[in-house]
């Protein structure tokens, strides 16, 4: 009889090309996503060694990080660095025969939004991209993880990676999410529990009644943040919700292929008795809307709370980390989180730029106007998300409330496309990282859900979104 296996182990085992005596594994990669910042050096290395791309049809490319969210997409980009990178990606894809979605195409968007949207992301597949938030695709029960550019080259040339097996971490979340609490709040609460490195060396499987009840958008938000605890990947077992979301998308299997795929995908769940190295339990019903006060995603708390005091830390290193974060964030210990004023609002990123996120933000935006002195932007995750939102009238709701309605891209999450927070300014952001300087040199970031960010825009300060419901 076979030993019970975790979902991660099942996907891993089905992709082993060979196991080596030195403990490493040559792992097959089914899907590769490429974009303009971390791929040019990989293509250059291939060219230098006269190497071909082994399976061009298994890579999909799009430009997202450096693409402006205003202006005209059919004109050359104004920024010389971004123009060079986007044109290089186009030229590399043409030379090596890789499918490329141009920035003027409505399907363009953030690589982690368009992969699922096009059905390039499939359950049971191994998926990589030169971007740490590749963990997003784990929402579909795919083993998806970020890689460096040398590994991008390795995948292009061989469709494999040399890997070592990770440990299994189960995050079991049960109970109904209370009113006003969204998957983003859940993700931030999980990060706070695990800490900035608590999942290093592990693949997380999210399970429990809360996770089963989440939409695919919500599962993507949750898996997206896995890397913020150091996890190699995050996973949710595929189920009827997954299959219903995928069915009919351009690149998913059709006809009898679809039926066979669903039969196989339905076997992708951890066996009873499978071994997890660790299990963490979370009660969803105890959560409240969450907001970060520090410079790591794990440094946050419920919006009803206050900025912590370094002396309350459990050890010296943590106390020093809190002190450094509060100095950078210009916050005093004991300040109520709802007393923190904000200058900028960013609704977007691979964490929170899908239709469900925009609906949640718009539902709040229609209750008021962006406060004086606050500049708020909404950046859809893809051109298709943008159009779907416009068909529902969300763009008008945002614009009438004083939000700017932008073109798709990574935008103010990584702040290399011209959208950035000015030094010393404070941003309520639906993105995934509040690191020092992440949204621009000297920028201060508070991570929260789309609804919380929209509420902050109206109030001009961090506010409990439940006051608006």
């Amino acid at each position, binding site marked *: 009889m076979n030993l019970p296996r975790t979902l991660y182990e099942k996907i891993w085992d*089905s*992709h082993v*090309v*060979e196991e080596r005596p*030195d*403990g*490493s594994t*040559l792992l*097959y990669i*089914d899907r590769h996503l490429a974009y303009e*910042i*971390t791929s*040019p*050096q990989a293509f250059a*290395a291939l060219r230098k*060694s006269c*190497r071909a791309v*082994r399976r061009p*049809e298994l890579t*999909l490319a799009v430009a997202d990080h450096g693409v402006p969210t205003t202006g005209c997409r059919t004109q050359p980009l104004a920024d010389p*660095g*971004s123009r060079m*990178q986007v044109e*290089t990606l186009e030229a590399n894809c043409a030379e090596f025969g890789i*499918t490329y979605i141009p920035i003027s195409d409505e399907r363009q968007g953030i690589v982690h939004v368009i992969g699922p949207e096009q059905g*390039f992301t*499939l359950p049971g597949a191994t998926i990589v991209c*030169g*971007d*740490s938030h590749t963990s997003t695709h784990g929402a579909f029960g795919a083993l998806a993880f*970020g*890689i*460096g*550019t*040398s*590994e991008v*080259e*390795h995948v292009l*040339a*061989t469709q494999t990676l*040399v890997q*070592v097996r990770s440990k299994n971490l189960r995050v079991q979340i049960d109970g109904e999410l209370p009113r006003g609490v969204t998957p983003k709040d859940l993700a931030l609460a999980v990060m706070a529990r695990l800490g*900035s*490195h608590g999942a*290093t060396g592990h693949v997380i499987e999210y399970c429990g009644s809360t996770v089963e009840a989440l939409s695919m958008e919500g599962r993507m938000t949750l898996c997206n943040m896995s*890397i913020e605890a*150091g996890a*190699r990947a995050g996973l949710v077992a595929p189920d009827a919700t997954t299959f219903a979301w995928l069915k009919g998308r351009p690149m998913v*299997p059709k006809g009898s292929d679809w039926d066979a795929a669903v039969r*196989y995908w339905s076997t992708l769940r951890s066996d009873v008795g499978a071994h997890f190295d660790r299990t963490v339990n979370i009660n969803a019903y105890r959560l409240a809307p969450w907001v970060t006060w520090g410079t790591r995603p794990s440094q946050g708390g419920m919006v009803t709370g206050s900025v912590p005091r370094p002396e309350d830390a459990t050890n010296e*290193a943590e106390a020093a980390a809190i002190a*450094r974060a509060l100095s950078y964030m210009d916050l005093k210990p004991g300040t109520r989180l709802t007393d923190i004023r904000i200058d900028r609002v960013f609704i977007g990123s691979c964490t929170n730029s899908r239709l469900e996120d925009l609906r949640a933000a718009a539902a709040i935006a229609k209750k008021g106007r962006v406060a004086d002195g606050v500049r708020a932007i909404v950046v859809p995750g893809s051109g298709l998300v943008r159009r779907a939102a416009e068909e529902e009238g969300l763009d008008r709701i945002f614009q009438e409330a004083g939000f700017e309605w932008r073109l798709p891209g990574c935008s103010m999450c*990584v*702040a*290399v496309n011209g959208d950035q927070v000015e030094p010393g300014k404070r941003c309520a952001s639906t993105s995934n*990282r509040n*690191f*020092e*300087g*992440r949204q621009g040199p000297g920028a201060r970031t508070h991570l929260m859900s789309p609804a919380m960010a929209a509420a902050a825009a109206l109030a001009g300060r961090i506010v409990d979104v439940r006051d608006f419901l």
Partner: protein
Amino acid sequence: MEPFTILKSRGVAVLLDDIDTDMLFPAQFCKTLDTTGLGQYLFARERYPEFNPDAANFPLSRPEHAGAEILVSGRNFGCGSSREHAVWALRDYGFRCVIAESFSDILYGNCFKNGLLPVVLPRAAVDALAQLTRTNPAETITVDLFEQTITAGGLGPFHFKIEPHRRHMLLEGLDEVGLTMARADAIDAFEKSHFRSQPWLLRTG
């Protein structure tokens, strides 16, 4: 890739936990097509006065640490973005080895592709080495990948672990892509059975 065997060099400590790749290599400098010449951007927001008024006191700015090829740091070094630019910048700046209490998974892997040795040591050893770089910056630290030890000025030897395949790649300075391409037969055989059982994986159109 340049092999790594035994390194004797002075060290410099930036003893913070959770140094992320945005701190190592701010995203604004990622608009490049190159892997070389990036050392100037390493820790840019710490090292340059236009970003940090106290830049002159950042350890890498101090003259006594010039030429250090060993960086000593804290827990979870290199977390965050997967950008290999951080490793290219560390190498271009002159580092050959980073000693830390722990590393992020992605940066740890990226180091080996570029001839940079990441060494995990217990906190007490990291603290002792960091202290040594401050009190006696000219002291030589010896990193021996054959023996998997670190010794310095009466400290150690500290033994470290490393996966055999990664150690081998570094010692020999091997090209991993070339080695895997030599396994084309095994990959062909795998693909045949993989795409027979999941034919939809090949139909992306």
